[in-house]
C-alpha cells in the first residue's frame, strides 16, 4: 500500500553530467505519479532519462516502457509538465534537467 505522504524520489545512484550522445540529447526529469497511476506504477516519484525534445505522446510511451501496467489508463490521463497541463498528443515538449512531469488521472477534488 502506497503511503500518500512520503515521496522519496527514486533516481540514479550517481549524479553527474551525462555526456552528449552523438544522437538525441537526453535529460533527467522527475516523474510524479498520482492516484491510480501511482498504484499501477507502484511508486510515486522517480527520475527518468528522456529525450529533451519529445512529443507528449512519445513521452508517455517512454514512461510506459518502464511501467507497462500504465498502458490501461492511456486514454484517461494528461500530463502536467512544469505544472502546466499537457494532453497526450503531438505537442512538442522542450524539457530541462530537473523538470517535473506528473501523470494526472481524471481529477476528483471538491
Amino acid at each position: 500500500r502506497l503511503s500518500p505522504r512520503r515521496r522519496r524520489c527514486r533516481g540514479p545512484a550517481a549524479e553527474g553530467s551525462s555526456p552528449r550522445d552523438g544522437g538525441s540529447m537526453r535529460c533527467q526529469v522527475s516523474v510524479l505519479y498520482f492516484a491510480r497511476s501511482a498504484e499501477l506504477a507502484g511508486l510515486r516519484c522517480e527520475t527518468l532519462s528522456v529525450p529533451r525534445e519529445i512529443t507528449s505522446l512519445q513521452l508517455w510511451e517512454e514512461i510506459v516502457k518502464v511501467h507497462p501496467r500504465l498502458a490501461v489508463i492511456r486514454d484517461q490521463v494528461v500530463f502536467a509538465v512544469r505544472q502546466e497541463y499537457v494532453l497526450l498528443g503531438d505537442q512538442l515538449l522542450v524539457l530541462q534537467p530537473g523538470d517535473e512531469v506528473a501523470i494526472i488521472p481524471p481529477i476528483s477534488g471538491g
Partner: protein
Amino acid sequence: MEENEDVPKDFIKLKSEKLSVDEVSELVVSPYCGAVSLFIGTTRNNFEGKKVIHLEYEAYTSMAETEIKKICRDVRQKWPSVKHIAVHHRLGVVPITEASVIIAVSSPHRAESLEAVMYCINTLKASVPIWKKEIYEDECSWKENKECFWANSEK
C-alpha cells in the same frame, strides 16, 4: 486607528486536519463587506447502492495551490467587488459527513459572493489536481469528476 484598506486576500490551504467552517468564514469577514457566502462539500455515505466507509484524498499539492490561485485571480476579474476568498481542502482520510472542502467569499453585496463561490467549486472540480478515492466494504474506487476538463465521458 489603523489605516487598513483591507487589501483583498486569498487564503488557500490543503491540510489533513478537520476543516472548520468558523475558521474559514472568519478569514474572509471584512468591515467593507455585507456578505460572506460559503460552500461546504461533505462526504456522502453511499454511491450506486454501495456503502462508503470513508474517503481518501490526495493532491499534487504545489500545482493544486497554483491552480486554486488561478481560480481566485479569475474570480477577481469576473467579480471585481469580491474582497477575500478562502479555499480549504482536506487531504488524507475524510470520514463520512465531514467536510472535504470549504470555500468562503466576501463581497459588499451578496450577488457577487454567491456567484463567485459557485464558480470556485465548479472550476475546482474541473481543473485542480486533487483525487478522491471511495473506500467501500469490499473494494475501493478512484472517482472522476464529470467536470474534469479532459475526461472522456465515453467508456
